[in-house]
């Protein structure tokens, strides 16, 4: 039940995340200020009041007025300042790895858990039962009692 909810939520979030077509064709300065870094101060353009940040803002505004799309503006900025001017790496080539690894990692470990759980839940109850009371059951009874007594002492 909750797995389904989880998947649903993840898919939903994935769908919501990418920018819509409208903002690609008609970007706003505020949008781009969130996606571009100030190259001298290592923070978002939005947060920066360095001189180059003001220049970049003016440049973006001019390109928007000239009718450039968002990716065209970003491409121009990259050609001037290098890839580090983008606040997040592009989703292609080597940089795709930055995005993919966490998602694949989560999906992979989710799969492993699901697989293990499926295997465990198919165990016969008889086989599983003695292990349910495991804990100290591999120890000999004398040692186990001593452990219990120590535990009890701790609880005082």
């Amino acid at each position, binding site marked *: 039940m909750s797995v389904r909810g989880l998947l649903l939520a993840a898919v939903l979030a994935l769908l919501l995340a990418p920018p819509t077509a409208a903002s690609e064709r008609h970007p706003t300065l505020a949008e781009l200020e969130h996606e571009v870094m100030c190259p001298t101060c290592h923070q978002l353009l939005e947060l920066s009041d360095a001189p180059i940040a003001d220049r970049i803002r003016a440049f973006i505004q001019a390109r928007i007025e000239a009718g450039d799309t968002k990716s065209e503006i970003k491409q121009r900025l990259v050609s001037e300042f290098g890839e*580090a001017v983008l606040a997040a790496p592009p989703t292609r080539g080597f940089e795709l790895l930055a995005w993919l690894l966490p998602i694949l990692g989560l999906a992979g470990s989710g799969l492993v858990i699901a697989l293990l759980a499926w295997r465990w839940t198919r165990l016969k109850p008889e086989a599983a039962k003695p292990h349910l009371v495991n804990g100290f059951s591999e120890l000999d009874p004398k040692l186990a009692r001593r452990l219990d007594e120590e535990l009890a002492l701790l609880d005082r």
Partner: protein
Amino acid sequence: MSAARTTAEARVARHPSSGKVRAALQTVGLSLVALLLVILAMRLVSDSSGRRLDKALAAGKSPAAPDFSLPRLNGDGRLRLSSLRGRTVVLNFWASWCVPCKQEAPLLQAATRRFGSASLVVVGVDAQDFRSDARRFIARYGLTYPVVHDNGASTATHYNVTGFPETWFIDRSGHLVGEHVKGPLTRRQLAENLAIALKR
């Protein structure tokens, strides 16, 4: 399943593959951690390469100037630093938005005129800047010495540049000499360091 068997054995017996899976997971996890540490160690070493230049200079040594090849802003093609061997080089890192760079540019231009390009080359490295802005700056201050554009500021990083303007002096054999001047050059700093660089 025999009750006498320990649970771990029992599980391995039931699923012979799970031992291998576990070993694989362990290997992958540990090698990822190791990889991360190696990358960081490498970065720690390479990151200090710029700083190493400063340290060597301060210790009285003359380290080799890291080579670069960058597109020219005034003129065509690219400029390779090593192609200037045999001449003394003043390597000036700047940007058009930097206020002190505006005071410094005429000084550098005057030095170019005075010494002539056969013995001295000023190389302007424009970084973290729009090329159009830089060209406007070049035209406004009438700079005739070669200026290159450092896209991504990687050359600036190699020279441990932390702000603009900054200047290094390179002798005829391609070694850094004098001092690494952070901030705008004064007339005296320029003269003193040029004297050292030209003498070698």
